[in-house]
C-alpha cells in the first residue's frame, strides 16, 4: 500500500474568486502580510502495491482523465512519505 498525492490548482491565468475572498478575510481576522491566496484541491490516492513508476503513471492518467480538467487546471502528482 502506498499513498499518491494529486494536487490540483486552477491555472494561474484563471481568476480564483474563492482564493480572493479568503485573502480579503485574513486581514479582518488579524493576519497581516498576505499578498495572495489561491485555493486548490488535494486528492489522496491509496494504491495497492508499491508506488513505483507504473503506479505513478496510472495516477497521472487518472488525474488527466477525471481529477483535473486540464482546460482550466494544472496538477502535480507525488508520492507521500
Amino acid at each position, binding site marked *: 500500500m502506498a499513498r499518491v498525492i494529486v494536487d490540483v490548482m486552477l491555472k494561474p491565468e484563471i*481568476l480564483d*474568486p474563492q482564493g480572493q475572498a479568503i485573502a480579503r478575510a485574513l486581514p479582518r481576522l488579524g493576519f497581516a502580510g498576505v499578498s495572495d491566496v489561491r485555493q486548490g484541491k488535494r486528492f489522496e490516492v491509496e494504491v495497492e502495491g508499491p508506488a513505483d513508476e507504473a503506479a505513478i503513471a496510472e495516477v497521472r492518467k487518472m488525474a488527466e482523465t*477525471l481529477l483535473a*480538467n486540464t*482546460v482550466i487546471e494544472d496538477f502535480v502528482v507525488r508520492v507521500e512519505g
Partner: protein
Amino acid sequence: MRVGVVTFPGTLDDQDAARALRLAGAEAVPLWHADHDLKGVDAVFLPGGFSYGDYLRCGAISRFAPLMTELVPAAQAGLPVLGTCNGFQILCEAQLLPGALVRNAGLHYVCRDQGIRVDNATTAWTADFSEGQEITLPVKHGEGRYVADAGTLAELESSGRVVFRYTGSNPNGSLNDIAGITNEAGNVVGLMPHPEHAVEELTGAPGVDGRGFFSSIVRKLVDA
C-alpha cells in the same frame, strides 16, 4: 420528430424541457443516464440541475455516464444537441464544446431574468432567431463563468461560434460576456440561460423568448 431529454441523478429541469418540446410539437423521449441507448432520437436536450451532485466539478462525473458514451460520438457525427446550464457544463467537460465553466466571479449564485443577444442565428437551435436579436431568459447558476485560453477565445470569436452574449450586466464574469457557444458544425450548442423556463406566459416570468430554440429544432427536423 423525437427529441431525447436526458435525466442524470440530480437533474432538475428535464420535465420543463420535455414540456417545452411538446409545446413546440416534438415528442419528448426520456433518456436515462445509465442506459447505453439513445432510443433513435433525432436530437438531444441536456437539461440543467446538479448531475451527480456536481461532485468534483460540474459535469465531471456525468460525462462518463453510459448514455454519454453513446451521445458523444453521435454528436460528433452531427446529431443536434442542446445543453443548458448543467447541460452546457457537461458538454464542455465532454469536450464537445471548448473551454470550461467556473465559479461566478462574484461568488454568488445568480437567479434573475437576463438580457441575451443572439449573435449566431445559423445553428440547429437558433435558426428561428435573427442575428443581433435581443431576448430575455432566466439564468440560475453559481458556476457559469465561461473561460477558455486566448487562442480558443479568438477562434470562437473569428468563426462566429459565440452564439449568445449577455447584455446589460454580466451575471458571472464570463469572458467576452459569453453566454453560449457552438461547435464548428453548429449542431452542438451550450448556454447557461434557460430557454425551457421561458415558453409560457403563465410561468415564463420574463416572457416566451425561449420558444425560438424549440421551434428552430422542430423546423430543422421537419425540413430534414
